[in-house]
Every structure is written in C-alpha cells, then in structure tokens.
C-alpha cells in the first residue's frame, strides 16, 4: 500500500483548486448545517473560527479575516463572490466529546496550532499514546470529510446541485 502511494505520487497531482473547493464546501456546509456533519455513522461538529484566508487565482489578491466567525462575515461572502476561495482556515472540530482546534491550509494540508484535549496522565508512555490517538482522530475526520466531498465532486449531477447551493448561500445576506 505504502509503496503504491509513493509511486502514485509521481504519477498524479491533484490540483490545489480541488482543496480550495473542498475548503469552500466545508465552510458553506458547516454554516448551513450549524457545523453538524455525519461521518461514518457519528455526528461531528466542524466550525470555522477566528481565521479565514481567501485567495484569488493568478495575481496576489488575498483576504485575511481574523477573530470571531469570519465565515459568516460580509467580507467573506464578498471575497467569495469576487472569485476568491479559502486557502487557510482555523477549525474547531468536536467528535465523541473531544474538542480539537487547528489551522489547515490547501497548499500542504499540514496542521498548525493543533490544540487537543488535555491528557490527564503523568506517565509519558500513556500520554504519548493518547496524543497520537488524538492526532490520528483529526486526520481520520479530515479523511472522512474529504471522502464525502470527493464523492460529490466526482458526480456531475450531485456536484452541480452543490455548486447551485453554494452560490445561493453566497447571495444571502449574512445573519
């Protein structure tokens, strides 16, 4: 499996706009569904908070929104309507009673400023085990979300409906 991944990486490159569209889909879905996503039979909360960066193609146009809930701001919708897409966002993810906060970006899909539930253990071995479990939980959730996005994105009819929905959301006035 791993060898296949390595050889595959040199064969395909997923363009960055796919991840920008993924972020936009996440942003809009989380706003429309009050942050609630059903993933693998469980409900998780996914909200964009405090940080949202939007970028346009070609030139260096970008908008950095910070503090509060930038996704519902007038500036965010205005930037999106002007052709910019999200490239970085700060997320609050809650799953199974555990809360995670992190910043993710479309260019590298790396996580920064990752805050995880406090592990009330003093033994390093157990603490590390828990921290790695929490990290893998974040990636598992992101993979499930991307999987959901990809099945829509690869179905012309379903994706067409999603684009329509997103465009309608963009036209609405923020509440």
């Amino acid at each position, binding site marked *: 499996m*791993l*060898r296949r*991944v*390595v050889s*595959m*990486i040199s064969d*395909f*490159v*997923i*363009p*960055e*706009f*796919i*991840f920008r*569209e993924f972020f*936009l889909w996440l942003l809009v879905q989380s706003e429309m569904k009050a942050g609630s996503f059903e993933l693998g039979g469980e409900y998780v909360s996914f909200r964009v908070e405090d940080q949202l960066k939007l970028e346009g193609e070609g030139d260096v146009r970008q908008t950095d929104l910070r503090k509060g809930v930038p996704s519902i701001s007038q500036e965010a919708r205005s930037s*999106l*309507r*002007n*052709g910019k*897409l999200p490239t970085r966002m700060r997320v609050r993810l809650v799953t199974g009673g555990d809360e995670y906060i992190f910043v993710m970006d*479309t*260019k*590298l*899909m*790396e*996580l*920064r*400023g*990752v*805050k*995880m539930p406090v592990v009330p253990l003093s033994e*390093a*071995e*157990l*603490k*590390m*085990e828990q*921290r*790695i479990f929490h*990290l*893998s939980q974040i*990636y598992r959730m*992101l*993979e499930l979300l*991307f*999987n959901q996005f*990809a099945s829509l*994105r*690869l179905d012309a009819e379903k*994706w067409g409906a999603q*684009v329509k929905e*997103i*465009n309608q959301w*963009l*036209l609405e006035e923020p509440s």
Partner: protein
Amino acid sequence: MGFLKGSLGIKRYFIENQDVFSKNRDTVVEKLLRYQFRSIESAAVEEAVGWVSPFRSYDPALKVEDTFLDSNLFLAMRIDKKTVSRLLLESKVHQFLDSGSSLTTGKQELKKLKEDIHQELLTKALPEPRIIEGVIDLPHSTLYLNTASHRSSGLFLSLFEKTFDILPVHIDPTAFAYLTLKEDSKLQALANAEESCFHDI
C-alpha cells in the same frame, strides 16, 4: 512546547520500510547514538545538529526507555546555531586595523582577516538551541514531525536519512487524497477535474 504538551505544528510522512525499527531496540538506539548531538560551545562552528534524549534536551546519552514509548518511537533532534553580528564583526575588524597591529591592505588579506576574526568570535558566541521532535507511530508507519519550519523539517529528514538509511515520504495533498480515496480511478478523475465556478452569479 513539545509533543507531550501544548499545541503542535504537524507535518506527516510515510515510513516506507520500517524493518529497522521492528528489529532489536538497542540497534535503533545505537544508530541514533552514531549521530548524537555534540556541543559546539567554545568551538568555531556555526551550526550543529544531532539526536538528544526527548526528555533531556541537554543529554545526548540516549536510552531505549526514552526512545521507545510503547508502539511509538520518540525522537528529538537538537539544532544549535551560533551567529556573529555583522556590526560586531565590522567593529572588531576596524579596531584591529586601527590598532596598527597589521598592515593589511589587499582585498584577499582583508578577507582573510575578517574570516579569522569571525572564527575567533564564533568560539566566544553562545549557541541558540532548538529542539525538533518527531514521533513514529509504528503500527501506522507514520512519522509526525512537530515543526512548521521547512528548514527544520529538512534538517530532521536529512539526519533521519543518515541515521536509518530511510527517507520518509511527505504526505502532501495528493498523498492525502490517495490515502482517503484509495482508488486510482477516483484520483485520476480528481486530477483531471475542471475548476468549478462559484463567482459567476
């Protein structure tokens, strides 16, 4: 802030072939000890990297019990860097020339003098240490690196490769997509997809 507490900045990598880690644990530590951190205090060296104990950053004497935490391999690379300020260097050079102790006139001589003074100042400069931590989740063949810096991650990977003869593979967005979708056809379709239009409204 380290892996065991505080916030993290994570880069993910595959470890393609981890045979080396599944063998004798002492052998792994022996490999790490070959590239253990060596202090550059009082040495005319600008930078040094090497492995230290993840629990005692001053201690290059690594132990199996510090390195293997159940099914995870905990690594800490120390980077010590010394810098000599340009202003201090220039000032020392001028001081030396003004003192009349040398009749340096040519370009090459001046360059050599600067280098000598730079080396002398380096021996007196205190190093600035940093620790870059990495954890290998052995059951999932995944290396988590706790740094947002590309330079630091590059140094870590280079030391890792020298130590174990393995170069971890970065999980970039394409690899992330593959891990998620697990099908070449879906990946190919995403790679060939056309951009959607959200703003023409």
